[in-house]
């Protein structure tokens, strides 16, 4: 078993090395067969996906270079003007082969059958085989370990070797597998494996196939290191490594300026949080002299509360960055520039959960710091409603899901903050499955709709993409919180816990967010799959269901999306997952952390009553979700004009303004642009001026002074002996006079 655990992270590392070393030689992408790869015959990394075929026209504005990282948010008019739809028909007419289905924008390698010119030699890919196989094997091992931990009740600590030994500073490379790790392992390995399979279909036609799989494998390795590590330093190493992989994969189409900019933005914003995380780890070391989880958690009680609070808040700063919580949420929506499998794997199901995992793993630290718990809860509640309010109005299908991810992660933080540890991890697991499903579904939609991401130019796709439609509806039902689907159980558990523990304001806000979630989720479904096709006719004729390698992961993920809640969550607040995670959160639950005095959970009551309060809360949750779906149906299917009427009817004429604010993401990006980018430039200019004028002025001034004085003194060297003699005599006279008058 120890060997299995050690092999789990090692396998993807092997796959990574294989893909990097051997991969480039295994793929053969004929230059002429793929749009957008017109340069030389080489298959090197450098010319993998040049988006070269780019018809002139409106698209240029859309692709205007913007490598600033912080991207200015276009106004609504600009968004409309630069939408991929503008000038669509022309572009399509210009595109070569395959009826020109793929807009030039996606010549950089997205696409499948339509992407390879008909009659041309098909690209041959073999570099995916080993990376996918090792991840598949890793999945099998993970499930064995999971079963041993969950059903065997074991906890494993595997020490591979002593990594750092410097005096008292001893860090081992060792893995800890308890039930919390096992839950993460379940999500990471399952979604990870399915994303590998999905990518085979999704990345077809891309010239950087091996590079993509290398990155995916490196990511799997880093993520597994992160969740398996048994000390904060290994966690940190994994944490930074997944950030690196995230950077590499967001910027996978690195010749696309928006992708390169988004990658930089993600990396930089994450560093802000990671800086706090690093400081937190250093504080733990300074105060406790150890970084191993067991020892830290044992001794954390000996510190005074102020220190623990600072440590907890610093750790939480890292979590805020990695899990895209306000105010560091800005990178996640932009990260959608990456390929959709990446969005599904890293930016929905695994890496963004790292922050939740960190707080949950460090629960003994957080229960010692009630203030930090409040901060976690308040950030969570605020981000939940904030992100949901943005998701309401986004028109890009992936942006809707991105903001939804931010909002759902915020639910988990809010649960962690009120001490509902198990509910948070439950939501993490179910969210990992259904959001992975939704993202892969959206990728299938984008793929089928010829690269279109704007939902305003979709519609009626259910007629042509039945499997995608069915699986995405299942995912959406789960996200919306409709009963029997997994999201219903996990979300309502969080809401019920907040009610039971006495956080009534949080409960009300959480319920409003649940309503908004149901609304925007089904807004997406109705805009995409229902109604009439609103895009160009030529695209409609080529819409097709995606390849089997893409549909199969959707179908497989639909199973836990339906079943996870039923298996893990019944009865609510006491389901199977509570038993599994009991050993991890036992102490925290015992400490009654996060339970307000006088609340229901403060008393002896801690069970679910189907015909009591618990049942009522469930009914409320289901009703709210249903109301959201109903409203989306009314506004986007039955009476499409009523949404506009509602916006106008908001009192004081605030409606259009609120709508604009939401479309523009509440101007957070603009504010950051103004404060950090512009402010940074201003500060740099001021410092440059100081350096150029004051510092350089002082240095140059000293030189000038010496030169001038020396130049004056040069004149005394006349070359006439009598002048020197006069100097000597004058000097002697001065000395004599001084001796005669002063010294005497």
């Amino acid at each position, binding site marked *: 078993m120890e060997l299995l655990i050690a092999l789990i992270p090692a396998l993807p590392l092997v796959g990574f090395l294989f893909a990097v070393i051997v991969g480039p030689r295994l793929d053969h992408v004929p230059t002429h067969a793929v749009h957008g790869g017109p340069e030389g015959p080489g298959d090197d990394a450098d010319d993998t996906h040049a988006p070269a075929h780019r018809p002139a026209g409106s698209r240029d504005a859309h692709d205007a270079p913007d490598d600033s990282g912080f991207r200015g948010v276009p106004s609504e008019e600009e968004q409309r003007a630069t939408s991929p739809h503008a000038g669509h028909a022309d572009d399509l007419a210009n595109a070569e082969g395959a009826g020109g289905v793929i807009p030039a924008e996606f010549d950089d390698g997205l696409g499948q059958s339509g992407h390879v010119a008909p009659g041309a030699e098909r690209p041959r890919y073999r570099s995916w085989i080993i990376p996918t196989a090792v991840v598949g094997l890793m999945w099998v091992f993970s499930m064995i370990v999971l079963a041993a931990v969950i059903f065997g009740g074991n906890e494993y600590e595997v020490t591979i070797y002593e990594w750092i030994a410097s005096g008292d500073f001893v860090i081992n490379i060792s893995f800890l597998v308890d039930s919390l790790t096992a839950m993460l392992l379940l999500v990471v390995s399952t979604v990870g494996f399915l994303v590998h399979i999905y990518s085979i279909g999704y990345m077809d036609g891309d010239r950087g196939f091996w590079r993509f799989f290398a990155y995916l494998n490196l990511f799997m390795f880093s993520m597994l290191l992160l969740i398996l590590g048994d000390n904060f330093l290994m966690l940190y190493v994994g944490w930074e490594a997944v950030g690196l992989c995230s950077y590499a994969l967001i910027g996978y189409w690195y010749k696309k300026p928006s992708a390169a900019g988004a990658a930089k933005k993600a990396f930089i914003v994450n560093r802000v949080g990671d800086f706090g995380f690093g400081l937190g780890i250093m504080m733990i070391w300074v105060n406790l002299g150890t970084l191993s989880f067991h020892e830290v958690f044992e001794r954390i009680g000996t510190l005074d509360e102020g220190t623990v609070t600072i440590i907890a808040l610093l750790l939480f700063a890292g979590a805020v960055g990695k899990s895209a919580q306000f105010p560091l949420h800005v990178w996640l929506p932009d990260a959608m520039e990456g390929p959709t499998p990446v969005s599904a794997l890293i930016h929905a199901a695994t890496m963004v959960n790292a922050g939740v995992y960190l707080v949950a793993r460090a629960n003994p630290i957080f229960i010692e710091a009630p203030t930090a718990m409040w901060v976690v809860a308040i950030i969570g509640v605020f981000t939940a409603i904030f992100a949901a309010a943005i998701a309401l109005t986004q028109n890009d299908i992936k942006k809707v899901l991105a903001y939804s991810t931010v909002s759902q992660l915020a639910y988990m933080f809010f649960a962690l903050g009120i001490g509902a540890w198990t509910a948070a991890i439950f939501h993490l697991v179910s969210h990992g499955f259904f959001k992975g499903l939704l993202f892969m579904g959206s990728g299938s939609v984008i793929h089928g709709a010829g690269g279109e991401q704007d939902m305003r130019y979709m519609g009626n796709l259910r007629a042509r993409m039945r499997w995608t439609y069915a699986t995405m509806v299942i995912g959406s039902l789960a996200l919306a919180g409709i009963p029997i689907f997994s999201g219903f159980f996990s979300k309502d558990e969080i809401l019920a816990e907040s009610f039971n523990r006495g956080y009534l304001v949080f409960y009300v806000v959480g319920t409003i967010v649940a309503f908004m979630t149901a609304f925007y989720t089904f807004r997406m479904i109705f805009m995409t799959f229902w109604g009439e096709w609103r895009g160009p006719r030529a695209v409609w004729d080529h819409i097709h269901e995606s390849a089997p390698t893409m549909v199969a992961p959707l179908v497989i993920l639909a199973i836990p999306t339906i079943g996870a809640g039923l298996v893990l969550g019944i009865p609510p607040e006491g389901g199977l997952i509570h038993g599994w995670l009991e050993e991890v959160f036992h102490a925290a639950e015992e400490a009654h952390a996060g339970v307000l005095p006088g609340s229901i959970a403060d008393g002896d009551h801690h069970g679910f009553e189907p015909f009591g309060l618990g049942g009522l809360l469930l009914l409320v949750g289901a009703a709210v979700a249903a109301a959201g779906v109903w409203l989306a149906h009314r506004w986007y299917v039955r009476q499409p004009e009523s949404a506009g009427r509602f916006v106008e009817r908001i009192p004081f004429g605030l409606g259009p303004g609120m709508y604009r604010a939401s479309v523009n993401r509440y101007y957070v990006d603009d504010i950051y642009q103004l404060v950090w980018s512009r402010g940074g430039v201003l500060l740099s200019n001021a410092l440059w001026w100081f350096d150029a004028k004051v510092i350089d002025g002082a240095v140059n001034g000293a030189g000038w002074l010496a030169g001038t004085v020396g130049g004056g003194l040069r004149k005394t060297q006349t070359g006439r002996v*009598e002048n020197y003699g006069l100097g000597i005599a004058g000097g002697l006279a001065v000395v004599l006079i001084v001796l005669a008058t002063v010294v005497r």
Partner: protein
Amino acid sequence: MALEGYLLVSAALFGIGTFGFMARRNAILMLISIELMFNAVNLSLVAFNAFLPADANAGAVFSLMIMAVAAAEVTVGLALVIAIIRTRQTAEVDQYSDLKE
């Protein structure tokens, strides 16, 4: 005769030497002026030795020492000056200002 008389002669000799050193342009005459200043000092040292009570004849020893140094100095100095005069074909120190700034 009192000490003051010797010292006055000595000071006068030194002043003449100084004046000669500064006023003359001829290198040889400048060397002679330097010799005058040496001997003015020697005269004052010998006079002090004679008039002031002292256990040892320090003044006389000093003046002997200065004579030896002066002899060495004038040997080297005169050799240099002769060499310069030979190459320059002039004894005027005004013409020797090649090292001026």
